[in-house]
């Protein structure tokens, strides 16, 4: 909601520097391609409204022009990144498991590549001033399922191996990361959050966490790897433990 620009909550997509330097061209190509529909739209706007009888309309519709420009940029970036992502997923399917943190490991390499491709559209969605078509809409195209009536624009949500049910509340600045880096190991595991669960502000879900129906995680706490939060119960602490009254 009222976060400063440094905490806007874009999806965590870290990239290994060795991979980034190799595939920087791919990233730049997506940025360039995504600006083409924008320039076409601006060209159309200029041609239709810059007439002798329409000058006032040209200036009056400028706010709407900027509004559409932002969304056209975001959607075209999404389109091109999804296209390239599907091609890469055909070459190597993303799968969960334990891997080595080494660019010779194929899974780690392709995870970095996927992040390189996703970065631009997710960045755009997070820095958008308008509250529509944000996390819930964008992440759907990368395979994350988020249910309806979810509050999910204030936290950092990983862009793969996450599934979130209906009516879930995700707190301010909370983090849902489905990848973990432990020394030389690299872990990818699915996080499942079922219906009516609530995640407090600034809490962290580590890979493999399962939150069952109506489970609540208190603010400022984190779960361990492969934790299961039972239904209708409250968890809190570092790491989160069942709260008994």
């Amino acid at each position, binding site marked *: *909601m*009222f976060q400063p620009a440094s905490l806007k909550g874009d999806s965590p997509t870290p990239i290994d520097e060795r991979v980034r330097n190799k595939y920087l061209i791919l990233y730049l190509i997506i940025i360039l391609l995504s600006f083409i529909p924008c320039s076409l739209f601006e060209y159309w706007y200029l041609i239709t409204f810059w007439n002798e009888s329409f000058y006032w309309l040209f200036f009056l519709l400028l706010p709407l022009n900027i509004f559409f420009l932002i969304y056209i940029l975001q959607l075209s970036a999404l389109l091109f990144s999804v296209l390239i992502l599907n091609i890469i997923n055909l070459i190597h399917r993303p799968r969960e498991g334990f891997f080595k943190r080494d660019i010779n490991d194929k899974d780690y390499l392709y995870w970095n590549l996927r992040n390189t491709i996703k970065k631009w559209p997710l960045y755009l969605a997070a820095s958008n001033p308008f509250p529509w078509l944000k996390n819930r809409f964008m992440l759907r195209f990368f395979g994350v399922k988020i249910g309806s009536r979810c509050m999910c624009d204030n936290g950092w949500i990983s862009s793969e191996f996450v599934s979130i049910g209906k009516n879930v509340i995700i707190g301010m600045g909370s983090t849902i990361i489905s990848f973990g880096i432990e020394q030389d190991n690299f872990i990818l595991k699915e996080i499942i959050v079922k219906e009516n669960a609530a995640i407090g502000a600034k809490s962290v879900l580590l890979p493999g966490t399962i939150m069952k129906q109506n489970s609540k995680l208190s603010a400022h706490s984190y779960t361990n790897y492969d934790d299961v939060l039972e239904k209708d119960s409250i968890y809190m602490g570092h790491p989160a433990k069942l709260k008994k009254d």
Partner: protein
Amino acid sequence: MEAEKDSSIKVDYISTTGVFKTPFTLILLVQLFIGGLALVLANLWFFNVLYYLLTGSQFYSLEPPGDWYYWLLVPLNIYGNIFLFSFTVILVSAGIYKFLNWRHPPQEGVFERGSKEWKYMHRRYWTAYFPIWLARAIPLPWADIVCYRFFGVRIGKNVVAYEGYIDPEFVEIGDFTMTSLHICIFSHLIYHDKVIIKKVSIGKNCIIGPQTIISPGTVMEEGAILGANSYTWLGQRLSTYLIHVGTPVSMSFPIQTLDESREKVEKRKKTVVLDDENLDDKKKEGGGNE
């Protein structure tokens, strides 16, 4: 009477604040249009001059028409437009906010989901959303504090509050208070299917450490310090000139003067030196034995 009821609220866990999307969210487009209109009205003359310099004809005849040096005003125009747009949006939405408050004055208490108070809370939040976003996007460090003041947050002078979430109502911050990176000041809390609204008041000379959460109903007295990585429970009271730490806050320590801390450091140094000497002796002894 209601305030007395509020003080007896007990919760099992601290969740978060936030709002759902409602049809009222379209207020953002209204704010955008009003800001745009102000820009057009302010720039009519300047656009006319530029158009004359480019083509030789005018939208509407003005005397005297522009000269070449009007081009030098373009950077000033761009910067001025950014500030003009943001401040018109801030002022207009403050007006809308006042109107909403007049229609239904905000109250403290516990409210069900879907009640009138819930509805109006969402409306107030969505009116405050875009101006605060703008105030934090423009390159003026005091803009967001001014913006918060418009929306009923009482912020004193010389307050540091740039890098955190602050709810736009029922918050009071005294003079010379410092807040650090990534703090959350909540005056609303979503609890199961209810929303709890309670006033947060932070006194003068307070320091709020990084990564902390201040829950609704917290009272920080003058000079209280909240340590890093800790959070307060609902309705907690942090007493004056003490350092408070814990998740939730459970410990408090006195603040040391400079001389006291120096003395402590010197004492520690002496003990460390003594320990080191002892260690050396032991090593020598051990070596001799071997």
